[in-house]
């Protein structure tokens, strides 16, 4: 593994949080809590707009012309990668109407099983239109060799 890749960051992506996509995400995940798909229910619960659910910053980070260019640029083969771990740390809420900027940085890489599995650890930051950090992400990808 090329340790010189450590510290490599993805291009920041700036993406609007759209109510329509939040509703589509709620549908796709079988969400039953109306706070996540009904504007009136969200407002009644004290939200200024539909809230983005807990894993949504992962989705926002993929709102790119080529979402996997960063990984393929590091030499990873899409057919051979699996998601190993994901962690979110929440600093401030994300709502429909926000504009979020996200990028991630390769912070660790290591091999297991004699190189059959290679792990890549990325840390990301999501920042809103007021330059506030809203969510910190940590994402570990495993690449299957052989």
């Amino acid at each position: 593994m090329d340790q010189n890749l450590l510290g490599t960051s993805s291009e920041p992506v700036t993406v609007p949080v759209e109510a329509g996509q939040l509703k589509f995400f709620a549908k796709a995940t079988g969400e039953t809590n109306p706070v996540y798909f009904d504007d009136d229910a969200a407002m009644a619960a004290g939200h200024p707009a539909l809230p983005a659910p807990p894993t949504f910053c992962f989705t926002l980070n993929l709102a790119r012309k080529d979402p996997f260019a960063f990984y393929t640029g590091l030499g990873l083969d899409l057919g051979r990668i699996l998601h190993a771990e994901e962690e979110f740390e929440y600093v401030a809420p994300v709502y429909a109407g926000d504009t979020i900027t996200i990028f991630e940085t390769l912070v660790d890489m290591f091999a297991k099983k004699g190189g059959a599995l290679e792990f890549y650890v990325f840390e990301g930051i999501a920042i809103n239109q007021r330059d506030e950090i809203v969510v910190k992400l940590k994402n570990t990808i495993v690449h299957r060799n052989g």
Partner: protein
Amino acid sequence: MTAIEDLDVGSALPAITKPSINRTTLALFCGASNDHNPIHVDIDFARRAGMEDVFAHGMLSMAYLGQMLTNWVPQSAIRRFGVRFGAITHLGDEITCTGKVLEKLEEAGETLLKLEIAAADQYGEAKLIGHAIVAVS
């Protein structure tokens, strides 16, 4: 339901069980989640990659775990939420999300609950194992 501040170490969260995962589930989640990796929706691509069939996005089950948490507490109470993806979730799997309180701790004037959470299939095989930290007050 028991008030969250009355929960003791060992208390279980209300579990949720989701409908079994089919190809439509994966197609919808592909679009809605922006995760267009063809390995989840294109069987030809999956077979060329050495898999028997397409399989579920790990983040779909993580979204289900998130629903278990937000059904239970307001999302603003969640401080951290993390999982390890231990096994692939296949077509036909029916995911049940469970959790329990591992620890009660005080930090910066807040009472926090550390939770152990898991998503398992209909045979009880754990697919995702993780943790969350939620604020009580």
